[in-house]
């Protein structure tokens, strides 16, 4: 058999990568901080840390439903199993109360905890490693200023061999680059600041870049679109899907409010991102917009297609009129729900129905003061069959794209996601 030497060769290579990983990434435990050693920081540093934590969307993963902010325990689904986020409050027993600043900085840059254990890259240190010491200092000061909450985190539920933590060492050899971002003198200061935030703490690529079979971002397809908790994270590069080209001001408004009149509302995981970015500094969000807008230079969005009200059966058209069109009224009158015409919707234009199905099922919970965007969850109001027909109806009515074939499958998947703890 000629296959055997090849398999043995592959096996040897895997073992070598993991061994090299051990040698390269092995870190010893750092001494625990004693209870009296609580770090001191001035109010301005703490405030900066809070703003950077908003850009990092830290609270989103590190807070479970109904739990105290940053006290962790949220189940993060991955293709390899479920990972539970850690407690970032300064509780000495269950949080980071014993972590010195050196230990925190090492976790951010090298993906190793205080005791020297490998951390799974669901914690996006492949991005956070770009953060400056000044910024990790501010983040540390902010987190340590929070009230300590005792919250014991459930054990991860990962498949073999991924439940064997040291395997992460091999992953780092292959995919973790510590290289600093060199400032690009040909670009504006805003662009450079934006790149630093987007590539670093903002970790936008974690969702918007596709991943390979080992769960690492495909660097040669940066921002070509990815997935997050079942939702599609649309492309941000030249293949972006939009009725209008995103400009800097539109992006800045969308990122900090979750909504723009020519693009619609952030939903799913992006709603949490927008909610957090509303707490970040306006200058930083604007800089992020400058960089993100530059990613899609050369994109040619397809303008809204003519409305085709007769695109479906009279029954489904009647359901659309009664259930959807009172808000999505196509008159540029977005009302208190801030519902834009579906001719502008990225979700309806995407090649997959994932986002359209999920937004109809789950709606958009109001996540900011001052009203909207809001959408009621139609789960239970309409039957699954009606939701499927409705998704296909808006696809046919508001785009020139081929009809989706995955609607029933996506509804079943979305229901399974909802059934998880």
């Amino acid at each position, binding site marked *: 058999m000629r296959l055997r030497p090849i398999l043995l060769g592959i096996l040897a290579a895997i073992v070598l990568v993991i061994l090299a990983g051990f040698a390269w990434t092995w870190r010893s435990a750092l001494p625990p901080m004693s209870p009296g050693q609580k770090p001191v920081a001035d109010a301005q540093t703490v405030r900066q840390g809070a703003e950077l934590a908003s850009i990092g969307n830290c609270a989103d993963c590190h807070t479970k439903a109904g739990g105290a902010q940053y006290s962790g325990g949220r189940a993060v689904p991955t293709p390899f199993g479920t990972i539970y986020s850690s407690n970032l409050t300064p509780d000495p027993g269950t949080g980071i109360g014993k972590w010195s600043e050196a230990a925190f900085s090492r976790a951010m840059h090298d993906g190793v905890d205080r005791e020297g254990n490998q951390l799974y890259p669901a914690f996006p240190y492949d991005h956070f490693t770009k953060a400056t010491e000044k910024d990790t200092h501010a983040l540390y000061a902010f987190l340590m200023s929070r009230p300590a909450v005792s919250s014991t985190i459930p054990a991860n539920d990962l498949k073999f061999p991924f439940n064997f933590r040291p395997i992460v060492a091999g992953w780092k050899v292959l995919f973790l680059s510590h290289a600093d971002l060199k400032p690009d003198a040909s670009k504006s200061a805003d662009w450079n600041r934006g790149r630093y935030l987007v590539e670093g703490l903002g970790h936008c690529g974690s969702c918007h870049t596709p991943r390979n079979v080992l769960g690492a971002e495909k660097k040669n397809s940066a921002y070509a679109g990815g997935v997050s908790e079942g939702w599609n994270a649309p492309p941000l590069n030249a293949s972006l899907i939009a009725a209008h080209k995103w400009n800097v001001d539109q992006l800045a408004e969308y990122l900090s409010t979750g909504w723009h009149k020519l693009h619609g509302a952030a939903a799913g995981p992006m709603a949490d991102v927008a909610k957090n970015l509303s707490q970040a500094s306006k200058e930083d969000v604007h800089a992020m917009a400058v960089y993100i807008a530059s990613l899609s230079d050369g994109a040619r969005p397809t303008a809204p297609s003519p409305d085709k009200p007769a695109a479906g059966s009279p029954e489904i*058209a009647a359901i659309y009129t*009664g*259930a959807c069109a009172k808000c999505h009224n196509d008159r540029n009158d977005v009302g208190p729900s801030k519902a834009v015409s579906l001719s502008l919707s990225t979700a309806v234009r995407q090649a997959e129905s994932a986002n359209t199905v999920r937004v109809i099922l789950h709606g958009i919970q109001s996540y900011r003061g001052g009203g909207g965007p809001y959408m009621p969850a139609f789960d239970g109001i309409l039957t699954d069959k009606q939701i499927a027909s409705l998704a296909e109806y808006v696809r046919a009515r508001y785009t020139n794209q081929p009809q989706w074939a995955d609607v029933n499958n996506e509804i079943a998947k979305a229901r399974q996601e909802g059934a998880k703890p």
Partner: protein
Amino acid sequence: MTIALKVNGKSQQVDADPSTPLLYVLRNDLGLHGPKFGCGLGQCVACTVHVNGRATFSCILPIAAVGDREVTTTEGLLENGKPNKVQQAFIDEEAAQCGYCISGMVMRAQALLKMKPHPTEEEIRNHMRPNLCRCGTHAAILRAVRRAATA
């Protein structure tokens, strides 16, 4: 167009455009004034009815989509013409001030207690959260739900 509906256990034929929200038909064609029109956008929850036992906004449910599912309004909760346990608890706690939201509150509380006869305080608050009340009788409403749960 004639559409068949099953409301409070009775089969009804209504002549209306199929896109008409169920709420309008309940109030204007069937004379059931329990469910209220508040926002018409599925935000205030005053229009809540049960569809197959589940609390549902009737203002954004077109009659074309109801099909053979059973609709129940607050009128349908009466037992032998008398308030049922949940309705009586709202009366006993004087939970209504202007009363506009109360039908929706009762329907939502009823749906919760059917699923979970003895909910925790947190479960009650989470379940009732979407229902808006502008008079401010929230505390009395919560007492009413607790009373119904222990009655």
